């Protein structure tokens, strides 16, 4: 009978680079930075690492395939190294690999490192997707972008819950304004300026109804984690952070091809969250999850994710957003570091950056973004579009 992962693994070191348009740094430099910070944080040396998991998604505009870029750059001494990829959930996937390896008793100390260098593509936005969808799909794939597909979720959400476009845009703007206020306080964020709801509502449209500030930016960055078995953790540091659950859920095709689903939420998030809550023993996520980093690639994504994670009731997140529930000083702070909104989204790194924030919060190292006495922290990392996606839900705590 499978036992799950709860309290079997602890994070004892983490690193994270500054995220942003790093014109002066290639992926190699970003990898070294996050790796060195993680090692120093753990009090370890490279020779202590038993195996490594490497997360990077758009490899051909970045480092290339396999785990070799990691091994070569860091000069890993012929240890096991595996590249993993699951679109935007890649960072979380790297952590999963490392954690399951130590939990299985196969290795003592494992590294998970994610990196993405997106700013060598030569144009704004993510690399043109049509080379990314496989040979069958690219003959018929519509000319869409990430903002556009999530915009379709906003259109449908407004229509279904009878929210006018103006009210809807205001709700979404409130989400982003909250994140910007938090990101302004994080030294490693890409965007560090607070913005008002009005500024956000008046910004240019990217894909109707989403505007510039409803969309996370494209940036470069890297983050890393070092994990060990939970019963060894205190040998390395007095304040490890424990993994409660590492769940992912992949779309079945039902949302894309069948007509039951309403395009106003993400089914895989519900599945991943349920598995994570069951594994952790959480019955009332709205009141038990102290803080969360969710995949706010777009403001609408964050909004519906609140419902899918069970923080808000179905169709009612607007009330929670407008009442400030998710602000840093609210009952359930979301995106305390500013999220993808302020860090941007180096695809392979984001999942680990989310865990980095939770980790620092539990250790009391979040500076003027510190949340008091958190009990459980949740990260939600989603790759894909509303209709086709892989969602990771990770819960950590003390």
């Amino acid at each position, binding site marked *: 009978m499978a036992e799950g992962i709860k309290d079997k693994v602890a994070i004892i070191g983490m690193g994270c680079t500054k995220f942003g348009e790093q014109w002066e740094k290639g992926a190699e430099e970003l990898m070294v930075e996050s790796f060195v910070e993680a090692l120093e944080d753990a009090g370890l040396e490279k020779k202590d690492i038993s195996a490594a998991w490497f997360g990077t998604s758009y490899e051909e505009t970045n480092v290339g395939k396999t785990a070799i870029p990691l091994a070569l750059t860091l000069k890993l001494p012929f240890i096991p190294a595996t590249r993993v990829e699951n679109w935007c959930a890649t960072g979380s996937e790297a952590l999963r690999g490392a954690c399951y390896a130590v939990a299985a008793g196969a290795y003592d100390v494992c590294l998970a490192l994610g990196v993405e260098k997106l700013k060598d593509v*030569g*144009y*704004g*936005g993510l*690399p*043109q997707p*049509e*080379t990314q969808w496989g*040979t*069958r*799909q*690219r*003959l*018929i794939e*519509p*000319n*869409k*972008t990430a*903002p*556009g*597909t999530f*915009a*379709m*979720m906003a*259109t*449908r959400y407004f*229509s279904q819950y009878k929210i006018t476009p103006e009210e809807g845009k205001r709700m979404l703007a409130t989400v982003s304004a909250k994140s910007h206020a938090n990101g302004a306080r994080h030294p490693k964020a890409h965007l560090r300026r607070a913005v008002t709801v009005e500024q956000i509502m008046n910004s*240019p*449209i*990217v*894909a*109707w*109804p*989403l505007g510039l500030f409803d969309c996370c930016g494209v940036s470069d960055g890297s983050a890393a984690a070092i994990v060990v078995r939970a019963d060894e953790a205190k040998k390395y540091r007095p304040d490890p952070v424990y993994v409660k659950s590492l769940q992912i859920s992949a779309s*079945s*095709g*039902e949302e*894309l*091809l*069948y*007509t*039951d689903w309403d*395009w106003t939420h993400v089914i895989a998030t519900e599945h991943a969250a349920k598995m994570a809550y069951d594994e952790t023993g959480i019955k009332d996520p709205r009141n038990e999850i102290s803080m969360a980093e969710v995949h706010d690639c777009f403001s609408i994504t964050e909004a519906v994710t609140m419902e899918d994670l069970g923080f808000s009731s179905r169709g009612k997140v607007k009330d929670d957003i407008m009442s400030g529930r998710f602000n840093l000083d609210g009952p359930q702070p979301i995106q305390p570091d500013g999220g993808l909104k302020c860090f941007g989204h180096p695809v392979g790194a984001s999942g680990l950056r989310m865990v980095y924030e939770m980790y620092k919060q539990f250790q009391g190292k979040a500076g003027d973004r510190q949340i008091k006495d958190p009990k459980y922290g949740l990260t939600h990392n989603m790759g894909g579009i509303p*209709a086709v996606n892989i969602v990771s839900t990770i819960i950590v705590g003390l």
Partner: protein
Amino acid sequence: MGWLNVGTKAAGEKAVANYDEDSLTMGVAAAMDCIRGIDRENVEGLNFATTTSPFIERPAAVMTATALDLKPDIRTADFGNSIRSGVGALLSAVDTIKARSAKSILVCASDSRVGKAGSTHEQSCGDGAAALLIGEGDVVATLEGSHSVSYDFVDYWRTEGERYDRSWEDRWIRDVGYSKFIPEAINGLLKKYNLDVKDFAKIIYPSTYPREHVSIGKKLGAEETQIEEPIFSSVGDTGTAYPLMMLVAALEDAKPGDKILIASYGNGSDALFFQVTDNIKKINDRRGIKNHLASKKELNSYEKYASFRDVLDTEIGRRMEDIAPTHLSVLWRERRMVLGLCGSKCQRCGTPQFPSQLVCAKPGCGAIKEMESYRFSDKKGNVFTYSADNLAPSPCPPAIYGVIDFVGGGRCIFDLTDCELEDLHVGMPVEMTFRRRYRDQLRGISGYFWKATPGRG
């Protein structure tokens, strides 16, 4: 561009293809209108005529047949190289049926000709297509006879690799060619079949020189009311499609018993005459010329027209340069899905799904390889949700797309075309239209697929 050329002073409008249309897509659209409600099993051949085929080698007739999801054991032929080729394709189809080599042939004529900026050619050329299903039995009109003259009259010519026609002097074309060949073919036909010009309810021939168009009629001894309105100032000169488009317009108003005379122009002339039957009353559900004109959209920007037709070399951006290769072996395997918009329908639970699936998408069904082919191209749908995207690269931004729920079942995300953001709303009815998806100039291939569009009534 009128400032460049004082000769371009004619009044009127011309039909212009959208950025995602070309001769092939228009031919498919005309064919779809033509075979509405007709069992496609019964189409045994397809002739496609155009002077502006997207490929020099890769027949438009076969691509069209695939888009229409016709059975593969049919005859196909491409006709080209002259604006008389549309009527040539029609004559050939009739002869094929008479020779009992096929029971029915779909004839498509389509052109999207372009002239240099500021030219009279640019002014007069319209984009359009017509399709006629030729067969036996319950026909709406019978072809009674024809007479052809053929001359190497080099009024317009184009050699390989060139985009634009070249031409000799207009007055010479008009006086020596246009006003001579059409009457010659028509008079030859009248003499051959012992007919009088007064016998005809409608006389149809292209108008490239409006004043001559009128005087040809007079010289034939026809009344003004007999001369079919040449749609020159509402559609333009649609090249090889032109005579057939006017024939369609004439049939829209025809009565049983009417005799209709039609002549092409181009390197001579072909004259044909038809007799309309009682069955003409049965095909009143086609869009034809009238309904297409009634649902027209205005394009008020010359720059947009010029960039759609590649007259203007516009910036496509580095993002658009990232075109993936076309994997022809995949296209072959998936041709019915890609060109024909055929998905699959689960034989166990009856759920239609697109793209075609091996494992049923209905939650709880789970049937594996129990699918039959299901055609979506002629199904209607509704917009479930949509967006207008300024980030997606497009020759005509914003890129509009939406989730389409099909009547009868099935859902997929499709590009939307022939509409603006303001036209859209959740629940809007749409139909599917065959369009050019991309042009890969590096590898010399264009890709085609279907988009959703608001119905044109």
